[in-house]
């Protein structure tokens, strides 16, 4: 090695290079806060919501604000977007921790979409388009079935309670549906073999509500989205939404619905009011009672003991039921307290790290229930 190279390598310049690289991991680019400053007061934005305040609707203000302060804490629910509390039909508290403009921003409600599919199933039954949840799926979409006679015993209730018996890996085949762009999504699902008789075992899968969407579409003669717009969204005053449709024209009944938080709260209020909305019975009371009753034990969230109804999660302990979407999209309804709690969050976080799960939300709801003073 030439002597002058050696001087270069060992001289002051090399010290500079070393310092330079030592500083690199310390970080130079901005690392923004996840939460904006605290806000919890419902804002008048010209919609049809009745606005109120915690004190006026029977809350212990301090205790409810403590919940909201926790919600706005940088390291609690970091992926959260909104938290809304509705009581006695009025918006009592409303906080947006990511961006105040999220009040008007559509957000994927993920699997909370299934609860909407449940409401629409009830409407289709109420109208007589479907005979009832005991009706066989084969009776409505016979052309989608293969020759397996056992599959033909599958009922609409089996779909509603995730007990189809189909050997459908929710992770694998849902992705396969997306990637491969199946010609016929319903036939693709029904082509999977049975691993148990229909009605036997709970097995949570997006395929069930997707099949049900196809069943409803065939029965009512229009897409699930159009059916929802005419029977549900228009009466509720929900105008801005996106509901994605599979390439073969079947509205995705499992996920794919995007709503603003206040409209998600309207769905909760409709459920709280047993399907009644401003003088109209949009969904029959009988359906609301049947669909929100816990019917099946599930392996999810064993610590808080939720059961599954017709695409609603139910808890007898809190006396309520919930729509639950991946990432932290929730509607929680408590009849006895005339209460609805809605949360939205970043919708595409993973369960392992980022997502707000039902256990987390359950804890928040318990504190909100605890803040009800009368």
């Amino acid at each position, binding site marked *: 090695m030439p002597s002058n190279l050696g001087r270069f390598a060992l001289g002051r310049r090399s010290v500079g290079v070393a310092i330079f690289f030592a500083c690199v991991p310390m*970080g130079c*680019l901005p690392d*923004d*806060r996840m939460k904006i400053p605290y806000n919890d007061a419902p804002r008048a934005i010209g919609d049809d919501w009745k606005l109120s305040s915690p004190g006026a609707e029977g809350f212990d203000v301090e205790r409810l604000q403590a919940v909201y302060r926790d919600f706005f804490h940088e390291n609690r629910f970091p992926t959260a977007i909104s938290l809304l509390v509705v009581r006695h039909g009025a918006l009592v508290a409303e906080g947006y921790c990511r961006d105040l403009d999220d009040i008007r921003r559509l957000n994927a409600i993920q699997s909370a979409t299934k609860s909407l599919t449940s409401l629409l199933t009830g409407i289709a039954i109420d109208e007589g388009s479907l005979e009832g949840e005991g009706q066989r799926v084969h009776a409505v979409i016979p052309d989608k079935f293969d020759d397996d006679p056992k599959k033909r015993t599958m009922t609409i209730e089996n779909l509603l309670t995730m007990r189809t018996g189909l050997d459908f890996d929710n992770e694998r085949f849902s992705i396969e549906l997306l990637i491969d762009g199946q010609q016929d999504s319903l036939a693709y699902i029904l082509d999977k073999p049975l691993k148990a008789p229909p009605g036997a075992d709970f097995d949570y899968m997006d395929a069930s509500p997707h099949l049900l969407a196809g069943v409803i579409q065939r029965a009512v003669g229009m897409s699930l989205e159009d059916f929802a717009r005419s029977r549900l969204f228009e009466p509720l005053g929900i105008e801005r939404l996106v509901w994605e449709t599979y390439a073969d024209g079947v509205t995705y009944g499992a996920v*794919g619905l995007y709503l603003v938080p206040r409209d998600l709260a309207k769905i909760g209020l409709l459920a709280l009011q047993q399907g009644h909305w401003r003088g109209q019975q949009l969904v029959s009371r009988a359906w609301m009672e049947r669909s929100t009753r816990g019917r099946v034990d599930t392996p999810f969230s064993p610590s808080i003991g939720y059961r599954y109804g017709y695409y609603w999660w139910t808890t007898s302990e809190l006396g309520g039921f919930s729509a639950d979407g991946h990432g932290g999209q929730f509607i929680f309804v408590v009849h006895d307290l005339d209460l609805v709690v809605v949360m939205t969050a970043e919708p595409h*976080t993973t369960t392992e790290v980022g997502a707000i799960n039902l256990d987390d939300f359950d804890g928040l709801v318990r504190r909100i229930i605890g803040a009800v003073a009368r």
Partner: protein
Amino acid sequence: MRTGDILGLRRGSQTWIGGFKRVHACRLLLLVWLAPAGARADPGAETRIGGDLGVLHMQLHDELVRGLRWSGPGAMLGLTLAHDGSDDTHLGRMRFPLAMLGNRYDHGGISWDVQLDYGYARTIVRPSPVLQLDLGARLRWDWAVQYYEDFDEEHLYWMTAYELGPLVALTWLFAPSHSLRGTLDTSLLSLVSRPPERRFYKIGRLTHVDYFFSKTHERMRVTTVHEHLPARVGITYTWRMGERARLQSRLLADFVYDSEPRAFMMLAFALTAGYAHAL
């Protein structure tokens, strides 16, 4: 980052470039004084092909992802084809940086990048036998794709840019077989694609093999430094081991800022080592 901060940064960069011109003469004098006698900055024309491998540290700040800082280590593979003439240089290069990222909540992410560029520079001044200053232009395709697996498992994020801008290089032959070459380039005219601010699933549309490529080239826009500002600095040490063998080590600092639809910044430092063979 707010617009004002970005403007400040840009002004800062321009000031630095202007300052470079002002102190240019002083630095050249210093380097000439430091250079060993007898070395030449122009050791003769040659064409080289080479490759290098190195480590890097990357930081990303994308306000589409809540403005978090994502950072982490990675690796980079590079391939080069270069021709040094008596008064000019052609350099074609491919680089493939890959970094494993994380944020302060331990959400994981990954960034992979394909960079293809071609640079041409002419020697404009040789203030001493061991120094030369080149000025030219560089055309670059930078296809930087990020996947934040824990924060957004449904979508890709990207910064795809075709860039054209000036290149300045200073070569110092500080010993008969050893040289240092510092380069700085930016882009004045860019064609850029970034993700839209709001995206839906588009269920059932992932049907094309070229999906990732086509998706990351949607909504291309023509822009310049007020919206898209890259600044890339490199220092390359070359040891002419023999008639044809060249050992090289590079220290690279890449910075990219893009303002649309929301601010994106990437800062990467890399240290590589490689071999080039004179043809």
